[in-house]
């Protein structure tokens, strides 16, 4: 394997992880905020559902995604009718990464929202701020370190995603092969030096991301 293909796999994985992280930001923050502030029936159920990908075997999560987004699945059929294929495409890689990373973003961001005191928000309200302005100028900035730390954790998790990706996206060279999947495929084929090259890149990126996430959480 050439240095170029190592870089291609690394760039594809980092790009897919980045897109997955960006895609999960809005729903992730919305869920985190509702869990931090909301009092509603079924809250425990939502908490459990969101955390499920952390404990269910990733391969099982991948299988669920395959059923849902496959051509005969409820969402896959709908997407197929407008000409969008997900399974075994780069979109499936992003999907698997987003689903597996979401719980980490939600849990960390929720902790961030919980440590913003309601009194600061109330004070902003007495100064004439609308609920939207309070959220954008007080809640979000005061929780920003946790949110960033959560996004970095989710990004790191996405980088190392293997089981769900393997089931829903496969290991197609130059198309859906990620760092983790590549390491597995090369090791299985006895190509240890190629696996080692991917391993080194994978560890370096993950190390930097987790280090940054930990630093942000501590400073927060």
């Amino acid at each position: 394997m050439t240095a170029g293909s190592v870089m291609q796999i690394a760039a594809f994985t980092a790009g897919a992880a980045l897109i997955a992280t960006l895609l999960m930001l809005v729903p992730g923050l919305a869920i985190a905020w509702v869990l931090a502030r909301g009092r509603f029936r079924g809250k425990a159920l939502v908490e459990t559902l969101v955390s499920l990908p952390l404990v269910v075997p990733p391969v099982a999560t991948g299988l669920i995604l395959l059923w849902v987004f496959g051509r005969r699945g409820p969402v896959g059929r709908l997407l197929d009718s407008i000409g969008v294929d997900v399974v075994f495409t780069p979109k499936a890689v992003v999907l698997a990464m987003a689903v597996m990373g979401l719980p980490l973003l939600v849990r960390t961001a929720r902790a961030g929202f919980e440590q913003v005191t309601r009194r600061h928000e109330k004070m902003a309200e007495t100064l004439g701020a609308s609920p939207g302005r309070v959220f954008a100028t007080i809640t979000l900035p005061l929780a920003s370190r946790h949110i960033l730390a959560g996004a970095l954790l989710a990004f790191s998790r996405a980088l190392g995603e293997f089981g769900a990706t393997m089931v829903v996206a496969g290991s197609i060279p130059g198309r859906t092969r990620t760092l983790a999947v590549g390491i597995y495929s090369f090791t299985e084929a006895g190509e240890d030096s190629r696996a080692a090259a991917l391993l080194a890149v994978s560890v370096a990126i993950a190390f930097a991301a987790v280090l940054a996430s930990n630093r942000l959480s501590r400073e927060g």
Partner: protein
Amino acid sequence: MPAFEITFALRQGGFSLEVADRSDCHALALFGPSGSGKTSIVEAIAGFRTPDWGMIAVGGRTLFSTADRINLPPRLRRVGYLPQDVLLFPHLDVRGNVLYAKRSGAGPTLDEVIGLLEIDTMLGRRVADLSGGERQRVALARALMSAPELLLLDEPLAAVDLSRRRRILDGLRGLRDRLALPLVYVTHASDEALAVADRVLVLDQGRVVAAGCPEKLL
């Protein structure tokens, strides 16, 4: 219509507060020992707490009324509130905090407020770097900048040094008169109550034990 109508009951945990006062005063001082309910009253007026029943009206404007099912959200109450814990926004500098409250075309100018509270040298500083007295002055500036129709000051000068306290009290009195701004002032210090208020409620254990002219009661 009285300037102030503050008649409500509020129960929280083991603490119960009952207050009933109507008056035409412009500046009301709440006086009493810690735990007597002074802060709970201003928090109910600001909309930080919701009374169990009653009515809160200032200058003919009803902020809360169980009979009329009115409970204005804090942003519509037009109160400039300075709480004891000041609640400056830690992620904004002094200028950012003061200007957060600016409503376009209303209220005093930034220069006026900066001059009154002597905060011109600290505008670019981080909130975390301010002393207790400086924080109180910045929070007071922010409250004034919100063009309030009522000012709620909970021990606003507790951490301000004596010489500056006198100047700020004079300035506050001037501003109150110039803007015809009703004022509720919580204090432990009788000299502050005498300086700013034309009526005082003396509280003890959640009840009003005396009400009237500060010169007679303090």
